[in-house]
C-alpha cells in the first residue's frame, strides 16, 4: 500500500478564467487535489461545473490562469512542444464521444501507428509494428486483421471506444484521463469498456481519472471521489465515505436526487 501513496499528479490553487470584462467566467476556481499512483479517481460534477475544463488543464490542452500542477512531485513544465510531448507520454485521455475522437480521413492503422511512434520511436521493423498493433487489438477483443485498412466510421460506438483503449494499451501512460468514456454508448457495452479499463490499469499500474456526471458510475469504479460544483471541489474522499456518507449539502442533494432501485427515491424533496 505504501506504493499507492506515491503522489502522481497534484494541483494547488488551479484556476481557469475565460473571457474578460462582461463575459468573464470562472470555469475552475482554485481547486486543490492529490492523485496517487495506481488510484482510480472520479471527478463528479453536473454540466457546467467545470469538470471538462479541469480535465483539459490537466492534459495541458489549455493554459492555466492561476495555480500550478505538479507531476510526480515536480512542477509540470510544458512550455515547449518537446516538453509537451514528453508530458503526453505520461498522461493520455479517452474522450466522451467516440464518433468525434477519430479523424475520419485516417485509417485505423494510422491511429495505432501514431502511438507506437510516440512510445518507441520510428525505428521499428514493420513486422514488429504489426505484432504490437495486433496485441493491442486482441487486448480489447478486436481482431487487427479485420480492422486494418478500415476507417473508424465503419465501427460501432462501442468498438471505437475499445479501440481507444487499445491506443492507451500501446502508449502505457502513467495517468489516464477518461472523460465520460461510457456516456455515449449503450448500457450493455458499458461493462465491457469498464472491465477493459480496469484490466489495463492492473496490467500497467496507471492512475485513472474518471470525469463523469454519473455518481453511480463514480461509486462503482473509483477509490477516491471529488465532487465538483461551480468550478470548486465541495467534497472529496474515499468513494464509500463520500457516496454513502456525504457531508456537504450539495453532495447530499446530488446523491438523493439520483433514482435508485433498492432504496426509496423520495420525490417530496424537490
Amino acid at each position, binding site marked *: 500500500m505504501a506504493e499507492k501513496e506515491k503522489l502522481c499528479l497534484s494541483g494547488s490553487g488551479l484556476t481557469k478564467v475565460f473571457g474578460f470584462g462582461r463575459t468573464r467566467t470562472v470555469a475552475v476556481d482554485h481547486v486543490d487535489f492529490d492523485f496517487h499512483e495506481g488510484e482510480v479517481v472520479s471527478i463528479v460534477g453536473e454540466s457546467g461545473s467545470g469538470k471538462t475544463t479541469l480535465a483539459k488543464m490537466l492534459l495541458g490542452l489549455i493554459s492555466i490562469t492561476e495555480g500550478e500542477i505538479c507531476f510526480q512531485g515536480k512542477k509540470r513544465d510544458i512550455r515547449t512542444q518537446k516538453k509537451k510531448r514528453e508530458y503526453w507520454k505520461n498522461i493520455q485521455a479517452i474522450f466522451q464521444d467516440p464518433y468525434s475522437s*477519430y479523424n475520419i480521413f485516417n485509417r485505423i492503422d494510422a491511429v495505432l501507428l501514431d502511438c507506437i511512434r*510516440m512510445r518507441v520511436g520510428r525505428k521499428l521493423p514493420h513486422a514488429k509494428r504489426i505484432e504490437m498493433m495486433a496485441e493491442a487489438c486482441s487486448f480489447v477483443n478486436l481482431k487487427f486483421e479485420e480492422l486494418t485498412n478500415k476507417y473508424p466510421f465503419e465501427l460501432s460506438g462501442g468498438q471505437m471506444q475499445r479501440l481507444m483503449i487499445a491506443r492507451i494499451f500501446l502508449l502505457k501512460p502513467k495517468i489516464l484521463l477518461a472523460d465520460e468514456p461510457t456516456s455515449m454508448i449503450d448500457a450493455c457495452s458499458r461493462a465491457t469498456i469498464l472491465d477493459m479499463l480496469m484490466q489495463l490499469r492492473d496490467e500497467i499500474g496507471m492512475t485513472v481519472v474518471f470525469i463523469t456526471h454519473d455518481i453511480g458510475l463514480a461509486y462503482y469504479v473509483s477509490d477516491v471521489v471529488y465532487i465538483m460544483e461551480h468550478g470548486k471541489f465541495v467534497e472529496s474522499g474515499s468513494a464509500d465515505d463520500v457516496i454513502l456518507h456525504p457531508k456537504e449539502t450539495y453532495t447530499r442533494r446530488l446523491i438523493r436526487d439520483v433514482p435508485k432501485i433498492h432504496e426509496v427515491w423520495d420525490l417530496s424533496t424537490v
Partner: protein
Amino acid sequence: MKHTIRQVFRSGKFLLGFIIFLALLLITIFYPLIIKDAPLAIIGRGTFFPPGIYVNVYDSIGSPQYTLMLDDAAANRIASKLSNDDRLAMRDWLVADGIPENQIDINNTKALLDQWENNYDPKKQVEGMTLAKQRYYLRLNTSLQGLLSTEGAIIAANNPQSGALEESDSVAQTDYVNIKEVPNVRVLPLGTDNFGRDVLTELVSALATSLKIGFVAGTVATLIGLVLGLLAGYVGGLMDDIIMFFTNLFTVIPGFVLLILISFSIGQEHRGAFTIAVVIGFTSWVWTTRAVRAQVISLRNRDHVNLSKLSGHSVVHIIVADILPYIASYVVMAFILQISFGILAEAGLSILGLGPKTTEVPTLGLMMKWAMIYQAQILGKWWAYLPVVVTIALITFSMNLMNTGLDQVFNPELRD
C-alpha cells in the same frame, strides 16, 4: 476521399455544372489551336457586320461560273430587296397619291412594282410627310430600279492604255459559283463587333482571359480567406479579435466600392488583366475568412484534434492533417463561388470603364462595355452582346450548379 468524390460526381446538379464548365474550358483550349487568328485583329472596315459567310466578290467573278435554272431565284432576289415594311410603305405612298386601297395588293410583287413605276414621282409633295420619309422613298425607288429586269450584269475593266471601260465579262441572273472554288471565303459565325473584330474569336479569347481573371481572383481571395480564417480560428485570442475586426469591417463596407476606388487609383496605364484579378481577390476574401474561421473553431474543440495533440503532433501537422481535410469541401465551394464572383466583378468594373486596358486582351466585360457604348442593344446587333451575356451566365450558372451539388452532398438535409 475516393468515396466522397464518387458521391460528388453522382450528383446530377454537380455533373451538369461540371460538364458545362468543362465544355467552356475545352473550347478556350482547342479553338485557338484550330483558328489561329489574333483575337484583337481588326478585320472589318465598319461596325457590326452581321453573322454569316462572307464571300469575296472579286474572287467570285473570276471563279468558274455554272448555270442553274432555279425557279424561285427571281422571287428570292426581289424578296431580299423588297421587305414587307417596304411594301407597306409603298402602299402608303400610293394611297396618299390617290389610288384606292382595295386596288393595291402588296403580295403581288409584279402588280405592285408596276403601280409604283407608273405612279411614283419624286417631286410630288405628299402632305404631312417629313423630309426623312421623302428621302427614304427616294432611296427605295433607286433600289427598285431594274429589280424586275431579266438582263445580266456587265463587268467592265479599265483599259490601262486608253483609259476607257471595256466589257470583260458578263454575269447572267442564272450564273452561280461554287463557294469551294472561291479562294477567299470568311465565315463569321457571330459577325464582327464595333471595331470590326471577329466576335467569335474575340469571345473565345475573352472567355479564356475572364476565366484566368476569375481563377486568379478566386485563388487570391481563397488563400487570404483560408490563411486568415485558420489563424483566427486556430490561434484564437487577440489574433482572432484583430482578424475579426477587419473581417467585420470589410463585410459591411461594400467590396465593389473598394474595387472602384482601388481600380481608379491604380490608373488606366497600370490596369492589366492580372492586376484587376488580384485587386478583385483582395476585396472579396471576407466570406471565406468567416466560413473557414467558424469551421475551424468548431473543429478545434473536436476531440480528434485534442487526441492528435496528445499524440505529440505539431501545429502544422494538426492543421494539415486534422483540420484542412474537414474544411476542404467548404474551401472548394468557396473557391468555386469566388471564381464566378471574380468573373462577374470584372464584367461590372469593365462596364463602369474601370476594367483592364482595352488594347491588350479582350475580356467578357470589355466586350460588353463596347457593345453598350456603341448601343448594340438598341440597334439590334444582338451578336455583339448576347453571346457575351450567355457566356457569362453559362460560367456562373455552371459554377453555382457545381456548388449546389457539392452543398447537397455535404449537407444531406438539403437534398430531395
